[in-house]
């Protein structure tokens, strides 16, 4: 059984880049969505082992998603990675303060995400 990772990112190209990086790691299945709303709907339907989210999204922002996950007893133990870009330090810091586990600054190397995934999902 592969573990499921939720990817929330509104830019299609970024989403696919992240998804392909995630799926390149054996044992992981990527579930992708372009919106925070969709993520809220997906949460109760799957058992995600990890969530990767963008901050800057049109419906709810990534911080709100992190807060929602971290306050909800059903999901609060799921580690969260933030994908951010240079210059958005305040948003990134808030995300980390809300309980995100790691952040990655775009453009990042596939290797760095892969390393973090293996570590948090305890994959060989």
């Amino acid at each position, binding site marked *: 059984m592969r573990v499921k990772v939720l990817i929330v990112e509104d830019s299609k190209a970024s989403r696919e880049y992240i998804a392909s990086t995630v799926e390149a790691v054996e044992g992981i299945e990527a579930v992708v969505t372009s919106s925070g709303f969709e993520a809220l709907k997906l949460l109760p339907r799957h058992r995600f082992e990890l969530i990767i989210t963008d901050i800057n999204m*049109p419906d709810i922002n990534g911080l709100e998603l992190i807060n929602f996950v971290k306050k*909800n007893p059903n999901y609060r133990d799921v580690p969260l990675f933030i994908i951010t870009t240079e210059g958005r330090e305040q948003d990134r810091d*808030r995300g980390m303060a809300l309980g995100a586990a790691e952040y990655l600054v775009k453009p990042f190397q596939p290797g760095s995400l892969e390393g973090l995934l293996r570590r948090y999902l305890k994959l060989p």
Partner: protein
Amino acid sequence: MSPPSKALAEFVAEATEILEALGKDLLVLDERRGQEADPDRVNGIFRAAHSLKGLAGLFGQERISRLAHGTEDLLDRLRLGKLHLNDAVLDTLIEALDAFQALLAETARGTETDGLTRRADGMAERLGRLGEVSVALDEDPLERLELDAQVRSVFTEYEEHRLRENVRKGVSMWRVRAAFDLSDFDMGLADLNTRLKPLGEVISTLPSAQPGGAHGIAFDLIFGTQVSLPELESGLKGTPAELARLAVRPATIRSAEALVRATESPAIVLGTLGVASAPEASTGTSPPSKRGVRAAVEGGTHQSLLPLASERSDTEQGETGASAHGVPGQESESDEEHVPSAKGPSLVTYLQGPGGRAPAATPPGAPHAGAGAASSALAEPSLRSLTQTVRVDIGKLDGLINMVGELLLIKASLQRLAESARQDGVVPLSKLFGQELARETRGLERKLEALQEGLLEARMVPVGQVFDKLARLVRRITREAGKEIDFVIGGGEVELDKLIVEELSDPLMHLIRNAIDHGVESPDMRLAAGKPRRAVVSLRAEQKGNHVVIQVSDDGAGIDELRVREVALTRGLITHAQAEEMGRRELLNLIFLPGFSTARSVSELSGRGVGLDVVKNNLGNLSGIIDVWSERGKGTAFHLTLPVTLAIIRALVVGVSARTYAVPLNSVLEILSVQPREIRTMERREVLDVRGQTLPFVRLSRLFGLPERPVSRYFVVVVGLAQERLGIAVDELHGQQDIVTKPLGGRLQSVRGISGATDLGNRRPVLVLDVAALLEEGLALERRRA
């Protein structure tokens, strides 16, 4: 260069979409110069630049990434209120968009030129330097808003800024809480947002961290509005929304003074005094529970008002509520601080500064000259899309899929019939069987027709896609030409085949450029001629049956047909004898002849004729024609008549000298039966008299050099595009059929009068007549014979 990879194609496709959205938003800002920019729109543009930066970074597109970084940075300062949106900023953003498009075009081609790299990097640097700093306030107005720190901690920097702006302006802040079913909360929220947006600004949408049961989810919308509570309540009638007002403490005297200084307006009168002292306001950190709500409602005066304050303070709030709602309205009017001080020009009604040149977009000292030179040295970028994709409404696709489902049902019935025919094969098939088969076949035919129609519809895009791109270009050309022009667009919603819309952009650009550069007079010349200072250049589309007519017109000096004649004579395009016989309209049409336009004739004829033969050819390739109207001193109009689609057309199948041809039905006006004696010769060419009008007439057999057979009567297919009419004599009519025209390859490509070939279903290829070319041929014959 190797062909771009699939990943690169994806990048180009998404970047194109982002730039399109960005361009649209910029256009709106441009049209509304002088008004306070809608924060949502500025944020939208910021998000576009932000996405582009991330996207370019991921795909290693360094140049686009660098420019996007500069653009994002500028927009970030704008949306966070650190920079005013003035004309210079807007101009620079529009220039940046042009640079992005040029960069993307190079990326799509797999090239990279140093000139463009320098231009883009210079632009990025200018973006970084641009800006005046907004007045900083002594006190952070957010400190006065009673909002749970926990809630504040999930605001992005931007949301925090919007909240701050609303509080600073004295706008009433509300928490709108609504619970929905988990399965369709997005629809509920969309409805709520649609109702709230006209009343104020939705600053943030927070999913409630409290579990809303297994199937429910609650949201808190932080909402700023100037409208009164009853108005807000009636706006939200029928939604599950519950309102709670967020308390705002009065500004300290010092900060109030600072506000007065900063906004040069009367100080904000705060109507919410006392609310801040309410115990729940300062301690109520989480959204009130349902029980709390009910208790508050019982104590409060408004049924759905859900005060965070105590009952006592709620009463006080009620007493002061009027001023709390009323005063901010006054305050906002005087809040000119963020409105660009110069009532600048807009794109649609573009006003040139009195100095002749538009305000420079560069602060002194910036490397403007260099960047400007680099930009003008580069050729005009084509407005054609870089990708061959069509965005299709999902509803349309669903409709197509449904149709395929119905086709499968028909297939099943036919299969059943075939099966029974096989089993009963030895006995004669019943009449009933035949009827059933016929019914199914009719059903199949109808469904296939609907499917075909649906697929064609999916290819249709609004012509406004090109118009929007042109509108941006007009702005720049106008500035370069030193003219004052109102650019008017109409009929952008008219739909055309994607292919045609794409191919239209270059010819339209040509015509508009000509109109601005040469058609329209300078403001002084216009005034001297007794015309308004500002010229009007318009671009309109209109659907007329199976065709779309696009008109590019100006109210400029018009074309002098006598000088057209002179030039045509000088260049040997016509003889003196021909010139003598030509009417005004024919003379004007000479401007479309190849060889008519040269650099010299540009100045001689106010530039009319620049590359018009190319424009005409481009349109011809789309089975369209171009026509010109002009009146000296009044202006010029070009009419482009185009078919709605090129993909599948209905054709009239005709026979001439035992050969078969197809004539596109959309240009067939009528069919006449004519006896040879009715054909007359006028000025050495054949004509027919139809209802008192003289109709030019050609025999297809003669035109194509086929052996003529004696016939007792001809069928004359009358074709027409725009005002042109021509009768084409054929021997036989075979009926109508849907055809897919395929282009002719190789040498046959340049055969005049033939647009392509098609298969009529019997595996026999048939040539399709090019009506636009034949009409022209008819006119040319007229000229040659004259």
